[in-house]
């Protein structure tokens, strides 16, 4: 089952960890968290995909909406722990032009 397994604030970042297939349902869960945190003036997010090894373009498209929301607030979306095929998919789509990508969460937090 696709779900968010943890959302926590570390330094200036909101770290969202997901588990399972990154599909429409999981994308919508993530964007709900982002919308909620933006209301609390949190504009910098790290999406940790360590437990999500597979994605579809519908879930990925929702990340474009996330980027759009954060661009309006001068915020950022960082991605870490991406499986190689997810990184390739996001690269083909051009998503990685608008996100910072990191191998690990520690690296993302230290950016």
């Amino acid at each position, binding site marked *: 089952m696709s779900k968010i397994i943890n959302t926590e604030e570390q330094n200036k970042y909101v770290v969202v960890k997901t588990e399972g297939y990154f599909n429409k349902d999981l994308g919508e869960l993530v964007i709900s968290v982002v919308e909620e945190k933006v209301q609390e003036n949190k504009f910098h997010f790290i999406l940790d995909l360590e437990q999500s090894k597979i994605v579809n*373009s519908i879930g990925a*498209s929702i990340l474009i909406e996330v980027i759009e929301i954060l661009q309006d607030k001068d915020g950022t979306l960082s991605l870490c722990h991406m499986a190689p095929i997810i990184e390739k998919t996001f690269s083909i789509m051009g998503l990685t032009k608008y996100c910072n990508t990191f191998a690990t969460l520690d690296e993302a937090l230290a950016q």
Partner: protein
Amino acid sequence: MSNETKPSVELRIPILKDMELVATNTADVIAKYMQLSEEESGEISMALIEATINAFEHSESQKDIFINFTISDEELTIKVIDQGKGFDSKGIQIPDIDSKLKKQERKRGWGVMLIKELMDSVDYESSNDGTTLTMTKKKKNE
């Protein structure tokens, strides 16, 4: 491996949520059998997810879709067959993230582009009775 002896696997998939993962699970087993790399296997799975979702969404039909995997020494050929009303693949616009951002443009529409980028060949045959997508992944010589 002659044409007569090419092994194949056939799936019949109902249009139900996340059923595209049935196809990727099968593709994983076949990729291991063919000794494809992790990279090749991931690309096949991703293309198959997109092809199956497109068949679900664009066929405008509730009829099951069929997926046929044909194995040869050189390549894996996958056919994704729906029984919908067909579509014109030439009419599909290439998506661009720069256009999708900052505009009220639909964010979706990446499936065909991803399939073409991830597979070695992609061909659509479409009629009023349905669409057959044929895609191949060549085995790299390592």
